[in-house]
């Protein structure tokens, strides 16, 4: 068996994983990154519109600073986030964006003088300052008080990831691509690395590491309709959950992005609306200006997605063979703007829809987009439950997003958390020694090898992994979507439990030889169903509405009883997660209040530590 030893093992080589790798490697620690795919193909590359950092260079961002960014982020989270982490994040984001510039990201820059911009379909004028000329500019995004989203056209994730991987190559960090971690090696207290499967040969490998970081992105692929890449199946979160001791934080906090294209659910960036694009219905009329007079199309994503579904339920959707949809209209932004600032959007519309966004409207509908939940860590990125295990990026619940992430805060989180957690790992590694217990390693390898043999031979049954996945995805889409209610969620949990039981009896139809894709998928199916159960069960138990979690039977945000974070662990032999709860934040710099958009009734908190002695206004 091939065995590799290293100081830091990064499971996942997207932006968060690579940024953490750079932090450790540049301090001389040996670092290996594992990746399902060549690192530059990670889903980070698909982030389009930009990253938030309060540089305040452009005139519409004038006066911006980390305080304002912090406030927007906490409001966006519907007070579900850890405020210490949100503060740390907002303070570090400007450094991270400038560091990325230093590493070669060609951020768009301020052009001094008069210019125009669109808001709500109308054109306005602005004058950029001479003294800010040639500094990094920003565009408008939802749920923000200032224009704060730094960008390179609409290929921001791509340019950031290329710059980051360039640094990885420069530092000579080892990357093993097409390798999938399938189990964490641990003794219930300490993480020692992972058992992994090579996706080129199908062979098992052992990676022994003093520190291991999970940076595998989200788990959108548990849903049928998602903007996520096909690799976003949550395998990193699942192997953490499988340890039985590491919790998933807030699994029920799932974001739906307003503008997935219909069909295929490929994302078109929030930058479309940020730059002045509007949403229209079957009659070609705007509706967000009626539902949200203040923020209109640029309320937070949870709010816009809900109003879109509400509007479709009123019969205002555009009928199509793929179900009703709405329109995104960016025609008025003009050819020049679309061809320079929204290039990928133009390409996606032309190539995947046969729609020219310069002259035609784009068919859109909300689709699953982001997992706010993930491997629960403390503010240093250290996972709960196992020493030596860390997590960062979408795979983690760090937790700066709470129940709704703002657009532009995910790219920012990847490189900010990657930097902060990577540096904390370097501190952790200083003088740290670990005993790689051979009995524990051998047991783990033996268990995984047996699991593989049984699935190949069909020892436990002949259930079809793809058919079970389809059932799981359909349940999640139909019953654990944008609007939720107790009876649907109960039915979802029960349905998923049946799928879970059958997932124990998966057998291959192929021989499982070499880089066999059916085996790779069958090995992770059970973990995906576990994650789906965490989402559905967490949602069922949370009897309130907060951010993206909207319960029709409990429409209030209940700060009195539900100002808490779900922690889901999985005990071997169970068919449901065990749920525990913790207070989401130790500090309450910004006490719970009204977000200023998506107005909903609030049951106020009575805890003096939370409200700082003041009772928030009850709307």
């Amino acid at each position: 068996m091939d065995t590799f030893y290293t100081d830091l093992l990064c499971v996942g080589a997207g932006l968060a994983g690579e940024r953490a790798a750079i932090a450790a490697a540049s301090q001389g620690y040996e670092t290996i990154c594992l990746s399902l795919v060549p690192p530059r193909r990670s889903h980070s590359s698909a982030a389009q519109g930009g990253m938030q950092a309060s540089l305040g260079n452009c005139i519409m961002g004038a006066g911006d600073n980390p305080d304002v960014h912090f406030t927007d982020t906490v409001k966006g989270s519907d007070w579900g986030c850890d405020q210490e982490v949100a503060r740390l994040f907002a303070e570090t984001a400007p450094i991270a964006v400038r560091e990325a510039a230093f590493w070669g990201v060609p951020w768009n820059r301020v052009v001094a003088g008069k210019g125009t911009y669109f808001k709500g379909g109308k054109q306005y004028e602005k004058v950029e300052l001479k003294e800010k000329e040639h500094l990094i500019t920003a565009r408008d995004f939802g749920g923000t008080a200032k224009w704060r989203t730094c960008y390179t056209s609409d290929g921001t994730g791509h340019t950031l990831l290329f710059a980051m991987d360039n640094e990885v190559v420069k530092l000579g960090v080892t990357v093993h691509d097409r390798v999938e971690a399938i189990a964490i090696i641990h003794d219930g207290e300490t993480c020692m690395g992972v058992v992994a499967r090579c996706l080129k040969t199908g062979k098992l490998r052992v990676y022994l590491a003093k520190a291991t970081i999970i940076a595998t992105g989200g788990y959108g692929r548990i849903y049928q309709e998602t903007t996520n890449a096909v690799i976003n199946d949550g395998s990193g979160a699942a192997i953490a959950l499988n340890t039985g001791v590491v919790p998933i934080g807030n699994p029920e906090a799932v974001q739906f992005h307003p503008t997935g294209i219909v069909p295929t659910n490929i994302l078109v960036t929030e930058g479309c609306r940020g730059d002045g694009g509007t949403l229209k219905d079957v009659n070609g009329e705007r509706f967000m200006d009626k539902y949200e007079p203040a923020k209109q199309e640029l309320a937070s994503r949870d709010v816009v997605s809900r109003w879109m579904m509400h509007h479709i339920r009123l019969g205002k959707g555009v009928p199509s063979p793929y179900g009703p949809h709405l329109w995104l209209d960016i025609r008025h932004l003009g050819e020049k703007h679309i061809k320079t600032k929204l290039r990928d959007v133009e390409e996606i519309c032309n190539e995947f829809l046969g729609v020219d966004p310069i002259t035609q409207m784009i068919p859109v509908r909300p689709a699953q987009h982001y997992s706010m939940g993930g491997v629960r860590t403390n503010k240093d990125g250290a996972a709960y439950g196992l020493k030596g295990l860390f997590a960062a990026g979408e795979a983690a619940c760090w937790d700066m997003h709470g129940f709704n992430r703002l657009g532009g805060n995910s790219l920012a989180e990847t490189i900010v958390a990657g930097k902060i957690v990577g540096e904390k790992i370097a501190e952790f590694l200083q003088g740290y020694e670990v005993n790689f217990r051979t009995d524990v390693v051998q047991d783990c390898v033996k268990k995984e090898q047996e699991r593989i043999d049984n699935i190949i031979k069909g020892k436990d049954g002949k259930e079809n992994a793809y058919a079970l996945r389809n059932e799981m995805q359909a349940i999640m889409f139909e019953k654990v979507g944008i609007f939720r209610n107790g009876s649907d969620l109960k039915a979802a949990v029960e349905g998923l439990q049946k799928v879970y039981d059958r997932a124990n009896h998966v057998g291959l139809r192929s021989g499982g030889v070499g880089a066999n894709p059916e085996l790779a998928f069958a090995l992770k199916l059970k973990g995906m169903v576990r994650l789906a159960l965490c989402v559905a069960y967490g949602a069922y138990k949370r009897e309130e509405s907060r951010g993206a979690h909207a319960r029709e039977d409990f429409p209030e945000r209940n700060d009195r009883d539900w100002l808490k974070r779900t922690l889901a662990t999985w005990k071997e032999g169970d068919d449901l997660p065990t749920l525990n709860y913790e207070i989401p934040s130790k500090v309450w710099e910004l006490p719970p209040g009204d977000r200023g958009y998506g107005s909903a009734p609030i049951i106020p908190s009575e805890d003096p530590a939370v409200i700082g002695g003041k009772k928030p206004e009850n709307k």
Partner: protein
Amino acid sequence: MGRPLKFNIFRYNPMDPGSVPHMEVFHLEETDAMTLFVALNRLREEQDPTLMFDFVCRAGICGSCAMMINGKPDLACHTKTRDLPQEITLMPMPVFKLIGDLSVDTGSWFRGMNEKVQSWIHTQKVFDPKAQEEPMTNERAEEIYELERCIECGCCVAACGKANMRPEFMGATAFNRVARFMLDPRDERSDAEYYEVVGTDDGIFGCLGLLGCEDVCPKKIPLQDQLGILRRKMGFSSIQHLFGKVFARK
């Protein structure tokens, strides 16, 4: 009813001692707006679960799914079956090492390329977290982005006559990368230093000018222009280099 499509797909699993390279025929009924992403996944899930191919973003962004589609390299995810004849032949890209069926190892090849051209900003400066970013004109940022849009899919390499004959040849993607750093004021490398990287027969002087690369680039990057500019610059450096040596001998 959609058209009945006939797929001829290259099959070989190097890890299976019983496997020999061959073509296999599959049939599938065409559906509305079908792409090769949809078609190949249906073939795997409904007909043959051993079929190997690569997709990640399925949106033309990540560059994973390049393959030979009726003889031409292109991204499978953005290829619509309605733009193809009823009979579709799919082969893995040449030049890259085969993993199995339609899947090739672009990861190792591009890591090697990035190491060869030293694809990173070369600077003596040290990042100062307290300092404002260095100014750059927006036009320059957009010029860099134009070349930075390469997604390392490998189509230009698969379509390159020289790369097919000579495995060491760097290919248009490498030249485009060098051109991208030459444009970037943050990179302090001189033309002479770039010459060390690409001024060889495996580099820019090995290009035969067939321009298959430009024809197939799915991101429509102006590769022909970059090859021309780089060849002129490196030609000039070459002469300087030569004279340098002559002078050095004296």
